């Protein structure tokens, strides 16, 4: 039930402005904060090509790719969540709830254990196939039977598939300590290892995903009125659903392959946007992207602050932040009795 609030254009501008500000704050903090603090002036002069202490310069140069990677990953997750929630007409759709992450994990662990794949692009491919198959499977299980894919059936199907695939992951992992060692690190979502190489790998997927998502925005608005209505209004329902599902899974799978499973970002941002501004997907998509980027970098910084002297992986921070928000969403969406 989307309430079209009496918002005006300046309201959106205000919203975009606030998000950009947060994003900038996240980016600056992410570069300046760490085991070695770097003052803002140094960063500014580094960026503008000015004179910087060579040690500080090296630290900044190392932190910038991590920050850029975090921004891209956050934006991807935000858009991916908005797309999934929109095509399933379901407020709780998120890679971590739908079991899509576990599907990606399974394929990655198969790749490490049996196929000897360690390259980033190979893992992205595997994670994407795993995520896509799982998403289709879960949605299939949830939508059959009485009442279609409602929140509850979707969540249960996701959790059940997660459990079953988790057992498969363990079966592969248990006998082989090498795989366990490798995979253990992959299992917790973190952007700590982000390099320019990762950014370069993520960028094409990011570009394609975002482009497709933004193209679908207007049609998704119509789709929210129900399939029959959408057909009557001239939307290719099947095509739109396919393209946006492809974009959504592509975005989250590529992030998952490079950074590991980072849950709840895609759940939180679209909800905040819809709650604060509008349900218009043409606005929700870009705002979720900006917001997701800001949220992920800020969470990453928070992980570094809270986890001193080491750091807490960003996947843990978003999970802890996300759970209460999830409870709030469950209450707000007024689930029906069973």
């Amino acid at each position, binding site marked *: 039930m989307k309430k079209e609030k009496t918002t005006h254009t300046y309201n959106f501008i205000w919203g975009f402005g606030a998000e950009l500000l947060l994003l900038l704050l996240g980016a600056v903090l992410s570069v300046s904060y760490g085991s070695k603090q770097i003052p803002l002036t140094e960063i500014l002069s580094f960026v503008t090509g000015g004179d910087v202490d060579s040690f500080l310069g090296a630290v900044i140069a190392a932190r910038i790719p991590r920050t850029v990677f975090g921004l891209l990953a956050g934006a991807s997750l935000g858009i991916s969540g908005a797309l999934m929630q929109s095509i399933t007409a379901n407020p709780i759709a998120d890679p971590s709830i739908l079991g899509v992450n576990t599907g990606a994990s399974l394929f990655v662990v198969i790749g490490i254990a049996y196929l000897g794949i360690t390259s980033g692009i190979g893992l992205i491919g595997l994670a994407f196939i795993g995520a896509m198959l799982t998403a289709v499977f879960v949605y299939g299980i949830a939508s059959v039977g009485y009442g279609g894919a409602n929140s509850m059936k979707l969540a*249960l199907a996701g959790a059940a598939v997660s459990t079953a695939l988790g*057992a*498969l992951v*363990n079966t592969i992992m248990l006998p082989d300590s090498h795989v366990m060692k490798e995979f253990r690190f992959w*299992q*917790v979502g973190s952007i700590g290892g982000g390099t320019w190489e990762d950014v370069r790998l993520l960028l094409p997927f990011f570009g394609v995903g975002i482009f497709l998502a933004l193209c679908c925005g207007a049609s998704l608005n119509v789709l929210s009125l129900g399939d029959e209505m959408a057909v009557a209004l001239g939307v290719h329902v099947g095509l739109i659903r396919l393209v946006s599902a492809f974009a959504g899974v592509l975005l989250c799978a590529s992030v998952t392959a490079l950074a590991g499973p980072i849950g709840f970002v895609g759940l939180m941002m679209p909800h905040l946007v819809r709650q604060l501004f509008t349900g218009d997907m043409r606005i929700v998509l870009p705002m979720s992207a900006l917001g997701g980027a800001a949220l992920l970098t800020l969470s990453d910084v928070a992980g570094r602050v809270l986890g001193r002297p080491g750091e807490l992986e960003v996947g843990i921070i978003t999970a802890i932040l996300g759970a209460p928000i999830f409870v709030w969403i469950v*209450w707000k969406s007024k689930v029906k*009795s069973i």
Partner: protein
Amino acid sequence: MKHIAEENLKQILDRQNRRATLCVILLAVIVLLLGCGMLMFGNTNYSMAEVWSYLLGKGSGSGAYAIGSVRLPKLVVGGLAGFAFGVSGYTFQSLLRNPLASPDIIGVTAGSSAAAVFCILILGISGAVASGFAVVAGLGVTGVILLLSGRGKAFGSRMILIGIGFQAMLNALISWMLLKGSEYDVGTALRWLRGSLNSVQMSDVPVTLVVTVITAGLLFYCNRYLQMMQLGDEYATALGVPIQETRICCLLAALILSATATSVTGPIASVAFLSGPIAGRIAPGSRKTMALSGLVGVILVYGAELVSKNVFSTSYPVGVITGLLGAPYLLLLLLNLNKKGEKSA
């Protein structure tokens, strides 16, 4: 209008009842056979006569040890745990009216697991303290989920959804602890996460037995109310079922039952989740489905243990084998529901 003779009616009603009774007997026989198998087969195989003499305390040496101290506790504890998971899973599924809503799916056992992993990896404690901590944490997490679910009509749905949210969060925490723990402990913790009979001892039996008997007894007592509640809360109330009391009582009993079993064997994946639907398939709509679920649970655990010890070269914990059964079941559910969906459409 056609009249139905009472005799006819009686026959129709009895037919189902008889079928269910027959199934109970049949499953009990299977349990017995698998139980014998568990005592006989393993690294070294023994004949029934040997097993019997060892059980009576007549033999000595490695055989007596293998059977008396390794296989017998596995048999007893595994059986109790399987029964506990089966009954508690069935209770959850029928209370929440959803075949997927078993305690291992909706975050109840995840609380226990997270606590146990925390004990083993972060605090470096294992054994009875970790088990006790796991039970308390499991109940605590569920308490929080229940509190957050509020009251009223949508209670069940909210509980399932919030449980799943918690499950996702707890799983992230568990993965993180596995990452931070020392590599040596991770194996132990991971095996514990998937449920295993490998470390059970005879000393685990008394507590597990007493708790299982009491809570399962309570559930069997409430069973006839549960049957009525399948008709929906409104009908059940109109027929005189105290639904609020029944719900709280059953939830608590089922929780304690599954948390206790989890604390001894770890969460043996999919047993709670599969037993109810399998039992329901064997004897649909019967009052004996609860007992059947328990027996199916035992069969799953015994069967998986036998398979893991005798089929694969790597000895997988029993939970991995049962967990694998979950995937084909979901596929089956998908195909099956598809057919039904067409019919009702």
